[in-house]
């Protein structure tokens, strides 16, 4: 909403600098996005189009001679609405204008357009920064003085409001004036809306009925006969232009003007085109159609409220008019409509037709019915003023409700204190509310009954009034206190804690956290082989792109894609992890959201350095972080070899804690890497199912183990075992001996001197007792015992 200060001043004195006014409005909830200083158009003048000829080489362009009073110039113009005789905004070479192609302010240079030199430009509203309108050029009123600088003719200060959906009232200049009045302590002058009613009674000339009062609470109309359609006077055109509207013709301009002044959308019909001079407000009948003002033929359904004459629809109520009743150059009698349409139906109709108009923008928010006759009278007065004619006596007012009873809401100082935490006396409350146009009546000690003015549709409950009071007196006046109520006993959810621990452990393991979009492409899910055709992942009804179509059932796809993207500009090392949710469909219910942790590791193991080797990351680099996570959580887990089509055969393990499946780790299958165009191989991937991890961690609490006061004896044990025996099994046997405190596997070897079906495992074994110092003999006996057990259980022998 654009509010020119010159217009605003008609209703309220503004003594503050524009920036200060904008600040106060913004703080009170009417945000001023920008204070536009309209002007600064150097080298721009009011010009007149003398002649218009077609461009010899381009159909869409025309060649115009433009006078600026002192000189005449030849320009090329592409606007469809340019015509000889028009007063226009003319920019000479050197003017700085908005260029819609580059999106920047640029100085106008001499240009040759299709062989013809253009010595300037006839400007659109967009080029001048007046509005977004770039459909055609700005046409100035005929009395605009040719040669006057545009700054002196059009210059103004305009507040560009960015309104929240509740502040419908500030979609009108009067609404803003009330706000300014309250914020600056100035009285508001509402327009005088009286006029002479010297025509015959309207009731004898038109018949109006509302068949569906649930969709149209109030319908008011007036009739002006003998009008002369033509351009609006300068003041009207100027105000509309500054507010971002293109003037069209006097009657239509008035309806737009009054909408901007009062908020109420109005519609004008050509009275003589209404069959039987009858208006019926009713639901459309199935099969009816209407060509609307935008030239589109619309099929109507009974959900749509139409304005009809005796036979056919002539407009869609509160949305758009029909071409069959449109005001034209020859119109002599105008039937003016000002109605209150149902906000829900209006919104649905507009959405169904994909047609959001300035009217629906207001109706869908629910205008007060008290407003309709006020705006009707204002517009009737102005039409007669700018287009002449005679106003019929009286208005039609079909109001299905009880009398127009304004909204009333009670407010107590007790409630104010309870919500704000401060005392505000009743006098202050009344003063603030009255300055906003509310009417207050004391209804008890510390209580007022407040009548809401017709322009405010957003005040319905006591809390709304509390906000009115505090936003005007300012939030700075509210004290600042700390919560003094007891701290509730709620606990942070266990999953939140586990997620934190897992992230910290993976970071400690040297991994970088990434966060990717939970919406993925079907193609990527097929690439990782995890698109379940039987139970497909949840799809978006309105995906923004094919790349963001499905709710991910796995973190693997985005991790591999992230890896591939980073391979483009780095050689690693890549150690990436993500902790996030995957989504499993759950019939018609909300999906199961499972927190997962997953990581990928690939590329060189170290950043290149003179101190390290050039080895690459592999399976064991992915296993290490898992061991760290489990150690941090106090979970004992085992790794069981498994073949899984996602992973390289023989290089994958499932992770269990007891019977609980915790996750998987392995090197990704080379064919999957190819599908993601990954260069570095191998890529190791780990995945942990966090609900299972949480389950396994339940009941685990760390217990201190006392330190032995006696020294440990160390023995190295080099074993040869059959190649198929897992190292973990050997280690398990050794560490379960009662005198063994700790075992370290420090060498794994196969090759020379070892039979090809065997491997060598070498351990440091630490023997220690909590009761005494072990003798050499005891330790040797224990070692011999261990060797016998190992030979029996896994066929181990001592390496020669």
């Amino acid at each position: 909403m654009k509010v020119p200060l010159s217009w605003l001043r008609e209703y309220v004195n503004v003594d503050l600098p524009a920036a200060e006014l904008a600040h106060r409005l913004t703080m009170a909830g009417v945000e001023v996005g920008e204070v536009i200083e309209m002007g600064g158009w150097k080298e721009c003048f009011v010009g007149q189009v003398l002649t218009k000829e077609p461009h010899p080489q381009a159909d869409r362009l025309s060649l115009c001679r433009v006078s600026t009073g002192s000189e005449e110039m030849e320009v090329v113009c592409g606007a469809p609405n340019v015509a000889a005789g028009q007063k226009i905004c003319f920019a000479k070479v050197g003017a700085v204008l908005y260029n819609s192609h580059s999106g920047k302010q640029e100085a106008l240079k001499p240009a040759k357009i299709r062989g013809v030199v253009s010595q300037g430009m006839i400007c659109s509203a967009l080029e001048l920064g007046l509005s977004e309108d770039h459909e055609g050029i700005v046409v100035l009123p005929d009395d605009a003085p040719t040669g006057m600088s545009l700054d002196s003719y059009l210059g103004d200060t305009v507040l560009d409001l960015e309104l929240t959906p509740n502040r419908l009232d500030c979609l009108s200049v009067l609404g803003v004036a009330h706000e300014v009045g309250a914020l600056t302590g100035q009285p508001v002058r509402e327009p005088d809306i009286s006029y002479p009613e010297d025509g015959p009674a309207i009731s004898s000339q038109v018949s109006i009925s509302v068949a569906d009062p649930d969709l149209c609470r109030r319908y008011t109309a007036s009739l002006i006969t003998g009008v002369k359609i033509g351009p609006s006077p300068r003041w009207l055109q100027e105000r509309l232009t500054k507010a971002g509207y293109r003037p069209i013709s006097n009657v239509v301009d008035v309806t737009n003007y009054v909408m901007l002044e009062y908020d109420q959308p109005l519609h004008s019909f050509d009275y003589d085109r209404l069959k039987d001079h009858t208006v019926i407000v009713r639901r459309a009948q199935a099969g009816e159609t209407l060509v609307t003002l935008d030239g589109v033929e619309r099929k109507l359904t009974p959900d749509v409220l139409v304005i009809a004459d005796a036979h056919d629809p002539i407009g869609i109520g509160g949305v758009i008019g029909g071409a069959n009743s449109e005001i034209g150059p020859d119109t002599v009698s105008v039937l003016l409509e000002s109605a209150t349409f149902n906000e829900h139906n209006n919104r649905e109709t507009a959405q169904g037709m994909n047609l959001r108009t300035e009217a629906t923008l207001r109706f869908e928010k629910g205008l007060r019915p008290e407003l309709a006759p006020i705006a009707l009278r204002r517009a009737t007065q102005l039409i007669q003023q700018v287009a002449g004619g005679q106003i019929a006596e009286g208005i039609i007012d079909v109001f299905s409700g009880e009398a127009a009873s304004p909204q009333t809401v009670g407010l107590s100082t007790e409630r104010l204190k309870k919500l704000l935490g401060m005392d505000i006396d009743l006098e202050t409350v009344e003063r603030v509310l009255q300055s906003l146009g509310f009417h207050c009546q004391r209804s008890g000690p510390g209580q007022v009954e407040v009548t809401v003015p017709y322009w405010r549709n957003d005040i319905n409950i006591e809390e709304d009034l509390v906000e009115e009071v505090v936003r005007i007196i300012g939030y700075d006046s509210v004290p600042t206190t700390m919560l003094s109520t007891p701290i509730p006993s709620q606990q942070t959810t266990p999953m939140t804690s586990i997620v934190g621990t897992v992230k910290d452990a993976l970071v400690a393991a040297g991994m970088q956290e990434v966060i990717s979009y939970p919406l993925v492409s079907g193609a990527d899910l097929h690439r990782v082989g995890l698109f379940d055709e039987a139970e497909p992942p949840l799809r978006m009804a309105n995906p923004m792109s094919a790349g963001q179509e499905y709710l991910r059932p796995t973190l693997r796809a985005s991790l591999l894609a992230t890896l591939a993207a980073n391979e483009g500009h780095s050689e690693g090392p890549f150690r990436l992890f993500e902790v996030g949710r995957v989504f499993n469909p759950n019939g018609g219910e909300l999906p199961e959201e499972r927190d997962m942790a997953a990581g990928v590791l690939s590329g060189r193991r170290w950043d290149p350095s003179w101190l390290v080797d050039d080895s690459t990351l592999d399976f064991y680099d992915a296993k290490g972080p898992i061991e760290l996570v489990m150690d941090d959580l106090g979970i004992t887990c085992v790794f069981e070899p498994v073949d899984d089509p996602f992973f390289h055969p023989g290089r994958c393990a499932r992770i269990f804690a007891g019977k609980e499946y915790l996750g998987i780790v392995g090197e990704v299958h080379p064919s999957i890497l190819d599908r993601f165009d990954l260069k570095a191989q191998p890529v190791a991937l780990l995945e942990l199912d966090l609900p299972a991890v949480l389950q396994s961690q339940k009941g685990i609490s760390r217990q201190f183990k006392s330190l032995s006061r006696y020294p440990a004896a160390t023995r190295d044990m080099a074993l040869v075992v059959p190649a198929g025996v897992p190292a973990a099994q050997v280690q398990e046997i050794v560490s379960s001996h009662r005198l063994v405190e700790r075992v370290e596997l420090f060498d794994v070897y196969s090759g020379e001197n070892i039979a090809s079906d065997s491997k060598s495992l070498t351990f440091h074994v630490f023997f220690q007792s909590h009761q005494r110092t072990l003798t050499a003999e005891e330790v040797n006996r224990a070692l011999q015992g261990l060797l016998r057990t190992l030979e029996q259980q896994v066929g181990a022998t001592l390496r020669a």
Partner: protein
Amino acid sequence: MTQPTSQSSAQSVQELVDAAAGELAGINDTDSLEAWRVAYLGRRGRLTLFLRGLAQLDLEERRVAGALGNQAKGRLEELLDERSKSISEAQLTRSASEDRLDVTLPGRPLVTGRLHPTTQIMREICSAFIAMGFSVVEGPEVETDHYNFEMLNIPLGHPARDMWNTLWVDQQDEAGNYPMLLRTHTSPMQARVMESTQPPVRVVVPGKCYRYEATDATHEWHFYQVEGLAVDVGITFADLKGTLFEFARRLFGNERKVRFRCDYFPFVEPGVDMSIDCFACNGEGGGCRICRDSGWIEIMGAGMVHPRVLAGVGYDPEKYTGFAFGLGPERIAMLKYGIEDIRLFYSNDLRFLSQF
């Protein structure tokens, strides 16, 4: 061998000390020094033997010569110590010039991991509220229309729904509506928490949110929010101010000022947004890019929980009051770290992530 007398003893001890000292002066390495020690002070060293030979003297002579001998021993040990120190110092000096390290070479590389900047800032935000007695809870990212909108006083057809462009899950009900969506804010957890708990309530809800929106430098369709909610008997707007002021000081420094202005969210009344004075220009404005000259930076929306929201979850709005707030961690990270494009957060470019 003549019988030593105290006089001759004194003379020979002095000779021995002189000889030893003279020899020591020429010694420059630890091996020779050890040989010298053995030659004079060892078990069969000259001074040791001399002292042993005193046993044959009479008592008085032995006393005098013994004292001289022990003095000589002390002197030689002193000399040995001095020499030993000077030799090791000389050796260090030598090795420093011969085996000098190039201290400018890079150190042994470590494997370092990092949390995503969003995680870091979310933790910082949550800790500030945890310190004020809030606990952390999380909710579903796929929500129902019911919780995302209706329970928040945004019924079907409400014009305020336009404030949230929604991504809908492709499952329709009998009426042809989409009942499931990706939550557009973390606010649905307000209703979920209150439905499952009796007052008092004091929680923060971090989590992902989604909007059907074209992305640009300041808009992402996928982003995080931290929602806060406190409900009890006697909670006021003044408490909201105090809580958020304390939060702003913890995140942006003790000297920060805050400012509230009226704003609209259908689930609070009164509704506000909070700004802090700009930490980049200390609220001066003038040419500051962070606050775009205003001196103030908007950081979150807040307000008193709307009575319809309280009534909707079965809380008595006459008895209980509360406040709610919501903020975007990316925006705060952008302000703190000077990041100019929000799209960097979730494109997972390591050149970006490794900077935090």
